């Protein structure tokens, strides 16, 4: 039982209500401030529907630690949180690849948005007055805990598309290491939503920017991202400027109208972390 002091900490705030696509609301920053005097470590971000079930395809989040972003733009919750509840997403949990060190007084901010899923080929599913609760699960540390010079900050980027026609190639700027330090990639998380009445099998191919194959050939989507988890774990390093290409191949099905058969929302999130100088208050 000896060792450094720490105590569990749960911070929670709500953004909402959301009533339609295209909205952007911020979680009350005061709710995300550690009330204890020392630093804290964040292990998880959790998302739930406050007043209704949460469709994780319909919401995206952008989180910053002070001036340090955890993602370049809002990331869809279904690309952030692997599924672990079979029936519904009562609680979506993002386990950070490394605990996030938050120095005393540095503000955590979160913005939730409702992006459009379909680009006019089909109507987006309705959002009926749902608020999103974000919970930060971590640990309070002692006041005299040493502040490290650099910290591991999670980084998530996303390529999101509806598949039209027969093939989709992710833009190189989506799954890129845009930093000037190495990016340690830990996993990919994927989900898809569809208005298809019938659908053919979708396949996935992944290559690195230098041409190295990661997922070779055309692998069925369900084998890469199993239905019950939607998670592909890996351990890789992307040097500055390197990126990963994702190719989704989705042939037109054999029945139904062409427009509807091709209409499918698919998102793939790339998760990792990089080392950055420890942010300070106001920094």
């Amino acid at each position, binding site marked *: *039982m000896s060792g450094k002091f*720490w*105590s*569990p*900490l*749960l*911070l*929670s*705030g709500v953004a909402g209500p959301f009533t339609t696509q295209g909205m952007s609301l911020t979680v009350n920053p005061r*709710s995300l401030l550690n*009330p*204890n005097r020392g630093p804290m470590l964040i292990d998880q971000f*959790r998302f*739930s*529907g*406050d*007043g*209704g*079930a949460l469709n994780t395809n319909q919401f995206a989040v952008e989180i910053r630690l002070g001036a340090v972003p955890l993602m370049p733009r809002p990331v869809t919750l279904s690309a952030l949180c692997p599924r672990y*509840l079979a029936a519904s997403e*009562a*609680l979506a949990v993002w386990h950070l690849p490394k605990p996030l060190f938050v120095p005393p007084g540095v503000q955590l901010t979160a913005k939730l948005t409702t992006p459009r899923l379909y680009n006019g080929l089909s109507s987006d599913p309705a959002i009926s007055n749902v608020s999103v*609760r974000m*919970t930060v699960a971590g640990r*309070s540390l002692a006041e005299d805990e040493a502040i490290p010079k650099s910290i591991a900050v999670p980084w998530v980027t996303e390529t999101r598309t509806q598949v039209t026609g027969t093939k989709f190639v992710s833009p190189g700027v989506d799954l890129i290491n845009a930093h000037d330090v190495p990016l340690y990639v830990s996993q990919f998380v994927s989900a898809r939503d569809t208005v298809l009445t019938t659908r053919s099998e979708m396949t996935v191919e992944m290559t690195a920017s230098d041409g190295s194959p990661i997922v070779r050939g055309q692998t069925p989507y369900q084998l890469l991202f199993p239905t019950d988890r939607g998670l592909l774990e890996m351990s890789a390093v992307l040097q500055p400027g390197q990126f990963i290409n994702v190719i989704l191949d989705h042939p037109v099905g054999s029945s139904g109208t062409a427009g509807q058969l091709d209409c499918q929302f698919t998102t793939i999130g790339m998760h990792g972390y990089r080392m950055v100088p420890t942010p300070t208050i106001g920094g």
Partner: protein
Amino acid sequence: MDRVRNALGPSPILPGSRGDFSGAPLVLSDSIANPSVGQIAMLNSGNLSPGNRTPYWIDEVRIAAVAYKAGATANGAVYLGQSAFVDVKFSTGRYDLMRDWVPMGVLAPRFGNDESWDGYSTAPRPWAEVRWVLPKPLYMSPGEVLQCQVRNRWASAQTYFNVYVTYVGRQIAQGEPPPAVRQVPYAATWNYLTASKPNQGDYVRYAASNDQFVNPFSTPLWIQRFTMRGIAYDSGAAVNAATRGFPFQSVAGLGPSPTNTFYPQVRIADSLGYSIVPEYTPVNDVFDGVRGAWTFGRGLGPREQINFQVLGNLADAVGPVYPDTTSTPNPPNVATTFNYQFGLIGYREEAV
């Protein structure tokens, strides 16, 4: 004896491979038949001790409450979610594992379909089981027994179930030195009961724990986890439902939803002033929705405590419904009584 063992050679079957029975499995069990309403009973210590005077480890405590009657009777016989109303108390004689009665349901996370109930139909018999894997194995000296008391806390009509308690552990060879310290499990609970119907003018119900989660020892207490169970039932007029209880709802089901605007929120701090959950947060965001547990993993100094505050918003409340399609009134009833049980599970170190 040693010469005999050496002559026999190492045993290929028994762990330890010296033929000394070190680590051999041990299962001890006893039961209470049909504890009547409010009854307190002690299990037979003779059945809960090994026959030989050797030390042993207890790794798990398993408790099952099983109804021995199926179907309903006209006088409102009760077939309950028993884990809500069966309390237990364990003691080694020298050390208590709990200061007061603890509902069996909060001793461990839910591990799946660990409970079934039958309100008022001819369905199979209801049962509840808990598997409490002790935070650390409990060392038992030769001849020592982990005594168990059971209490049926349901205060209404007759119940029809038996309670089975089983210890699962390992034997230790004679002559093997005891450990330097004994890690004794500890469990505590706080029951938060609301008794008002949501539409009776009580718009906000607030409650705080007192000293239920204090470390009563003069040594540190390591908190392994907190658990939570919620039960909703109707203690109203309908005779079919009046004596009925329901199994614990999943914690996820206790969260806010369009059909459940009455949901408990918690705020937690320790006695030193450290905030743990600074603002009122729905319980399904604090506890794992399926397991009903929160791995805490923190030490508590002597006489320090964890303080829980619970807020239940009853305004315009539509409580969680209990699944009842066989009795009247139909359709399913809205629960009017809510019992939230919070549990603390941990251990402290004592001399052997």
